[in-house]
């Protein structure tokens, strides 16, 4: 079946109704552009937010289970019962046999990288200055696949040989240290060691910048008094929004305590989800408005073209052919609007990417020219146009030719 005749008539009808066609394609284009734009802005804003929140944090952390006090209950019933169970102060708990757990975690669906971490608090000392710090001892090469530190380096190089440390920029300021300086770290148990500052990091928040000291795993282990053991495994997941699901999966297969960034930043995550729902609603209503616009213009067009429809029917066009003529008009308007709207949307995005900036003055979103997305938009718009044209097209097909010609 060819659409030669139907397509030719549809195109001519659209060209003939110049103003109407321009208006409705324009309307559809604006709708598409707005959808395009808010999607880009939202993606940018959320991406920025997530980056900020999770910047120096792993997506998922595997920790040893919290130590609880098991109430001793002898016999059944009458024996002594404890009236209250007091939580135990938490010591530095560690994971034994972590290499096996790390391998198991790495094999889990959705996990892309795992790094062992020995972490605990200590004191950073240089001269008279001393600051409370968080020691993060790890194998740098593995850790970089979990948390991207490379884009956070303000000065120096990412290198963690024994005796090296990477510290937050605020901490360096507080200690009055510069790149290459040495400073001492002393743990609560009194062990102390000297580190050389190999890099200054901007971890995205003042608090982190003031406290974090990255060191070699072994050094941290000996500082914290847990040789050969680690305090947690840090993992990165493929889809950050699915971190919860991966966490649940890990929880099911290990006896460890699993925390995802979503849990630890629940408000942020809820805000992002709510934004998603809002924009979904906005996009939905824009779509409905565009569809109604296309439908109403075509309804008017059918009335205006009554006589011509009647003539075509009289000289042999079938109802189905008239139906197709108007369905095609809907599809063409949809596609035209989508193409124009995508262009307009890209223009808006490129314009606003220069205006909208985050607190650091970086562009909130980048202009990504995604042909796949445009393809989807065009396809969706074609379908939308088709659906919008159903009612008017049926009106056209049902016209009685004798009455239509009589006028």
């Amino acid at each position, binding site marked *: 079946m*060819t659409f*030669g*005749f139907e397509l*030719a008539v549809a195109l*001519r*009808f659209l*060209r*003939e109704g110049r103003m109407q066609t321009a208006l409705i394609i324009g309307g559809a284009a604006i709708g598409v552009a707005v959808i395009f734009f808010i999607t880009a802005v939202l993606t940018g804003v959320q991406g920025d937010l997530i980056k900020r929140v999770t910047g120096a944090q792993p997506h998922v952390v595997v920790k040893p289970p919290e130590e609880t006090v098991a109430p001793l209950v002898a016999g059944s019933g009458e024996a002594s019962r404890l009236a209250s169970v007091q939580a135990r102060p938490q010591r530095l708990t560690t994971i034994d046999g972590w290499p096996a757990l790390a391998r198991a975690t790495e094999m889990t669906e959705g996990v892309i990288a795992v790094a062992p971490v020995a972490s605990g608090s200590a004191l950073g000392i240089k001269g008279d200055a001393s600051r409370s710090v968080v020691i993060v001892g790890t194998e740098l090469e593995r850790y970089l696949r979990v948390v991207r530190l490379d884009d956070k380096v303000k000065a120096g190089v990412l290198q963690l040989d024994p005796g090296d440390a990477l510290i937050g920029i605020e901490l360096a300021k507080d200690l009055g240290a510069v790149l290459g300086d040495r400073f001492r770290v002393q743990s609560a148990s009194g062990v102390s060691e000297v580190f050389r500052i190999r890099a200054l990091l901007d971890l995205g928040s003042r608090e982190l910048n003031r406290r974090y000291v990255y060191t070699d795993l072994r050094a941290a282990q000996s500082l914290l008094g847990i040789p050969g053991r680690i305090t947690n495994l840090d993992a990165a997941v493929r889809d950050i929004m699915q971190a919860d699901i991966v966490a649940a999966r890990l929880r099911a297969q290990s006896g460890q305590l699993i925390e995802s960034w979503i849990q630890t930043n629940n408000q942020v995550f809820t805000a992002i989800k709510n934004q998603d729902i809002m924009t979904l609603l906005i996009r939905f209503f824009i779509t409905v408005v565009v569809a109604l616009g296309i439908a109403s213009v075509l309804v008017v067009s059918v009335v205006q073209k009554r*006589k*011509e429809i009647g*003539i*075509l*029917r*009289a*000289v*042999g*066009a*079938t*109802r*189905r*052919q008239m139906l197709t003529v108007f369905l095609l008009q809907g599809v063409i308007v949809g596609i035209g609007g989508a193409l124009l709207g995508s262009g307009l949307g890209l223009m808006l995005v490129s314009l606003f990417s220069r205006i909208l900036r985050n607190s650091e003055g970086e562009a909130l979103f980048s202009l990504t020219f995604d042909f796949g997305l445009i393809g989807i938009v065009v396809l969706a718009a074609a379908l939308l146009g088709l659906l919008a044209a159903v009612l008017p097209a049926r009106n056209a097909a049902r016209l009685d*030719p*004798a009455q239509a*010609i009589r006028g």
Partner: protein
Amino acid sequence: MMTRPLVRLQGLRKTYNEGLPNAEEVLHGIDLEIAPGEFTALIGPSGSGKSTLLNALGLLEIASGGRYELAGRDVTVFNDDERTRARHEVLGFIFQFHHLLPAFTALENVMLPGLMRPRESGGPEAIRQRAAELLDAVGLADAMDKKPQQLSGGMQQRVAIARSLVLDPRLVLADEPTGNLDTHTSDSIFELLRRFNRESGTALLIVTHDPRLAARCDRIVELVDGRIAADRPNTPAAA
């Protein structure tokens, strides 16, 4: 009649608003036969039912009763698609106000019926050629690419005639084809119809108010109050 009739109406009735209080019977049982190649005038006062009869013959209106055989087939039982197909295959239409599609050129207007089912009509190129020939034959070889509004009323009606003939119909139904044209133009249009009738053997039924034109047809059917009041052969006076 010697040959099998192209059209045979038996007791054809048409009632508007059937079943409603304002129902009105417009055609009260028409018996009419049209032979292939006949050149017939349908005359009668306004409101006599000429247009209704023409529409019924053209399968644009469904008869309320009686029987209609077109080219040997009982079309009263046809559904919409079958009627559409029969219109396309057997009939040609010339309307009073030419009714060309303003968005298409003269040539495209003539081609349109053929383009609806291009394979049956020999493909787009054959249709284009046939349409061009017809426009040439009606004297519009130079106006093929003009839009209807660039043409005079007489020229538009010539395009409409070419369109009605593009698929070689067996019967052309013309509703006052010269109704809104001046005498001179109207004469030349009429001559054109006469010529095609002679050359291609297409039967024509022409509704007209103009007794001068009717007098130049082979047969005159007169309709009065929805009934055939007179049906007589006519020897056309030499033009």
